């Protein structure tokens, strides 16, 4: 052991390094979230947290589970592929409520709703049905003549 006779100060110094490393491991253990690095250089649990945010648009399948009559009426017409909440707005609260009648959505105002899509503009695709609202109906509400769920004139006129 004569080689190490005068090396005590080196071992003490090395010991300090090891202690510092241990301290680093302990601190790292407490500051790095457990799921960090689970899938990559990020917190794996973040995805679960983002996925847990509340839903507001219930989805047309949910609507159709109760309102099958409207779904059937819609299927026959030009609005077949327009989903319920495109016009009626987000309805998750209404759909999951114990008393859906209490959270019944207000009826959309056809004067605002219909023109949003159907006002004639040169910017819209040519095949899309569009009218100049003032000329077309002379100020009458759209639902005087068109049923919103099946708007074709052959579908029986006023709702």
């Amino acid at each position, binding site marked *: 052991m004569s080689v190490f006779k005068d090396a005590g100060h080196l071992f003490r110094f090395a010991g300090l390094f090891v202690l510092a490393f241990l301290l680093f491991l302990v601190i790292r253990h407490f500051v790095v979230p*457990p799921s960090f690095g689970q899938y990559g250089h990020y917190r*794996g649990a973040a995805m679960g947290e*983002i996925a847990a945010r*509340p839903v507001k*648009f219930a989805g047309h399948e949910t609507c159709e589970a109760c309102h099958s009559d409207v779904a059937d009426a819609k299927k026959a017409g030009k609005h077949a592929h327009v989903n319920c909440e495109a016009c009626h707005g987000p309805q998750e609260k209404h759909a999951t409520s114990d008393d859906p009648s209490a959270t019944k959505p207000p009826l959309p105002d056809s004067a605002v709703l219909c023109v949003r899509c159907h006002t004639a503009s040169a910017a819209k*695709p040519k095949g*899309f049905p569009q009218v100049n609202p003032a000329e077309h109906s002379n100020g009458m509400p759209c639902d005087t003549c068109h049923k919103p769920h099946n708007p074709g004139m052959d579908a029986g006129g006023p709702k």
Partner: protein
Amino acid sequence: MNISRRQILILLPAAAVAWKSVLAGTPETASNYTMSDHWWGMLIDIPKCIGCGNCVRACAMENDVPDGHFRTWVERYHVSDEDMTNPEVISPDGGKEGFPVAEEDSKKYFFVPKMCNHCADSPCTQVCPVGATFVAPDGVVLVDPKYCLGCAYCVQACPYGCRYIHPVKEVADKCTLCYHRITKGLTTACCESCPTGARQLVDLKDPKDPIHEFLKTHPVQVLKPQMATGAKAFYNGLDGSVR
């Protein structure tokens, strides 16, 4: 048993490393949703877009997007045949309330809905200094609001301008592809409320998804393909003037 000081010095760090792997625990299991089974993207069919702004409003309602900021927005292009490189582009309030009526003239018009492209090789996630934004194993680019410092490197790095700093939370915010919806089997709020089907959520790992047939039979392009971002917002009928 006698353990020398030297043996302790070797054993303790080894024990610490072993203990850490014990504490790391098992990965979380989400109900009925396996990330590795999906690779999400979006199909945007420009000839179908009527510029109604339903997607912008639905996104803002679903995700509480603050006024003046957008996770998705719609642009209206007005392009003359002589000067394709200088289109007139408008997007009043992101197209949230639609667009002013356009009169027919010699130039062409079309609408371009924009959103996060959920790039597979995303520039935004590469610049994050803290690992707060990432491409999830199912292909969705997400921000971890608890880890984000709000340094806005990612806002600058996104070539599509799809990120913003949330004015209240002061962290980066962006389209999550409605991650809280698609993991429950619903479509995104913008797709749900699009009246013409101009937007379609697509799952490239689902062999039954109609996207495969669509990509095969249509001239589809991504935005800024020269940047090689691996963008997954596929545009059908994309005009060369779109930037």
